[in-house]
């Protein structure tokens, strides 16, 4: 049976990697979901109890340890917990892991996967709501995957593992119970974006939780007679410019939804494609929906005001029509 709930599919995907190779281990104590989801994660942790290193609160130490373990023949999947805690391990994630293969002239591989539940999780406030992915895109040599659909998480994890690259899996706190409906699209190879809904009027690009919002927006737009094409980036490093260009070549219009801050973000990187490779394809300016450049406020109305909500995506797409 194929899983349609994202969280269940990711637990299965991790389990599949572990079943396939006994050198795949889990390092970290935080798991793959919040407390509410521990019932889904527990069977995995029970099955592989002896291959899970439950760590002290020592992100810097255990992420570095994973780098070393990867060098010495293991494939560690490191559960960092909340995305903001990745900052505690920053030196190992951005300044050690991604440099080693290149600086050893391609001789020392670091096959490791860091996983964290990033994103605006609702009332996490500024210190528990980080979206570290845009900053991580500045770490050359680090692969970043961001699955958002149940049918895609398994193939992406498997491809990342086979790539033997140090990989950051930016997961999202709100994705766990998302249900995939309809016939899943065939997963393209690692590094390629997926067209999850074909359309001709406007291209809407997202990833992770924002992709879910983009799909919902497309459904609403369809009811209003606007045929949106939705693209799931899937990987942020590398970023697939070709698929986006092909789509915009058709639609001439682009909306990008991205929870990161506006400057040097995933959305700005996507938009920058149209100052180069995609130059001349746009009929209208790019609409970028980011979280405003302020620390994430706790109070629910303030936070809700700032996230790239479905209605904002719908409005941005409509604004491009006519």
């Amino acid at each position, binding site marked *: 049976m194929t899983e349609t709930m994202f969280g269940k599919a990711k637990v299965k995907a991790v389990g599949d990697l572990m079943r396939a190779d006994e050198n795949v281990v889990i390092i970290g104590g935080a798991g793959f979901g919040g407390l509410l989801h521990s019932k889904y994660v527990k069977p995995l942790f029970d099955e592989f109890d002896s291959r899970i290193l439950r760590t002290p*609160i*020592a992100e810097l130490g255990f992420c570095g340890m994973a780098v070393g373990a990867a060098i010495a023949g293991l494939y560690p999947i490191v559960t960092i917990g909340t995305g903001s805690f990745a900052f505690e391990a920053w030196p190992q994630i951005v300044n050690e892991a991604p440099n080693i293969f290149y600086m050893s002239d391609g001789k020392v591989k670091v096959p490791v996967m860091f996983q964290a539940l990033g994103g605006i999780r609702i*009332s996490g406030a500024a210190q528990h709501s980080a979206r570290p992915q845009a900053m991580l895109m500045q770490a050359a040599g680090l692969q970043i995957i961001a699955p958002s659909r149940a049918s895609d998480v398994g193939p992406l994890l498997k491809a990342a593992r086979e790539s033997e690259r140090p990989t950051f899996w930016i997961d999202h706190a709100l994705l766990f119970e998302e249900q995939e409906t309809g016939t899943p699209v065939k997963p393209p190879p690692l590094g390629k974006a997926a067209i999850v809904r074909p359309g001709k009027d406007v291209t809407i690009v997202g990833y992770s939780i924002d992709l879910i919002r983009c799909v919902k927006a497309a459904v609403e737009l369809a009811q209003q007679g606007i045929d949106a094409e939705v693209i799931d980036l899937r990987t942020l490093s590398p970023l697939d410019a070709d698929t986006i260009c092909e789509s915009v070549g058709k639609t001439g219009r682009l909306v990008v939804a991205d929870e990161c801050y506006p400057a040097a973000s995933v959305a700005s990187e996507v938009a920058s494609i149209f100052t180069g490779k995609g130059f001349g394809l746009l009929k209208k300016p790019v609409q970028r929906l980011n979280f405003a*450049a302020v620390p994430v406020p*706790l*109070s629910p*109305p*303030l936070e809700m005001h700032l996230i790239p909500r479905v209605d904002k995506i719908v409005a941005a797409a409509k604004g491009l029509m006519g």
Partner: protein
Amino acid sequence: MLPVMSRDQCLEAFRKMLLIRRFEEACIDAAAKQQVHGHYHVYIGQEATGVGVMSVLDKGDFVHSTHRNHGHLLARGADPDRALAEIFGRATGYSGGKAGTLHGCAPDLNFPLSSGIVAGILPISTGTAYALKYRKLPNVSVVFFGDGAMEEGAAYEALNLAALWKLPVIFVCENNTAEVERKPGGAQYHAPNMSIVELTDIARIMGMNTGIVDGLDMGAVWTAARDARERAIRGEGATFLEVRTHTWPGGQYPTLVTGRTDIRHTWNGEVPAEFSKHEKWFRRNDPVLSIARELLTLGMAKQAEIEKLDAEVTRAINEAVKFANESPFPPVEEALTHVWPH
């Protein structure tokens, strides 16, 4: 033991401990009604620590805290109305609803923003201490943190800096897992996963003054903090105190598993049948009941006075709940304010 303090001081400390207890019980009730935003951590069981330490501080001292900061904030003298409003995400809160439960903050009380990052606050506390020393002020910085912070590298760097430069810091490590067997490693979420057994050993080998204090004994905390403060002011540098408390049985999933504290339990000694599983808590591990019993035994307060004080505190907290609930959420434009000072 209380006698180091005057009767008034003792009663004030007791009042604050009760205030914290009633405040936290109100938070738990409010959370059940979805009025508390985000996950939160209560200070039940640790009241004697915050209140004991805070009782010896001066207005000019700095106080730093963590995710478990409600008790520290109130012990420092914060307004329960504004503190609760902040936890409810309201415009009238100390941070206008922007920070919430993990980030208690009362700058007018020299209580800058609490950090929700385990051990994140320790280096900052060495910085305020350095500034105090540099500015030749007769003050100290106090930093509260959990036993879990000792698992993070940042804690070690901060301790080293404080020891190296004899900074006026009081490190208050609140070990709220005193009941966990003291053995290396292999503990649980709320207990340290350490290779060492005694947390104070770490600071001791760095040359710091250290102490292990019973967190049920407000007087003992008071004395240890007073001595630490005096040493720091004399230029003798930092002190590391491990204050040991017993995990409140409801600590992991904050529900009122021990019920709303019935202050009459101080003297009637009966453990309500429904909570018999937690008998130890009622008989000896609850610091609020402990200090109340001490006050009775020493003749510092009578049953009626204790009940009266509790009624006053309860009324104040009920009003805080009302205040917080009646306060508006901030207008959405506020989301964009205070990013920069100018």
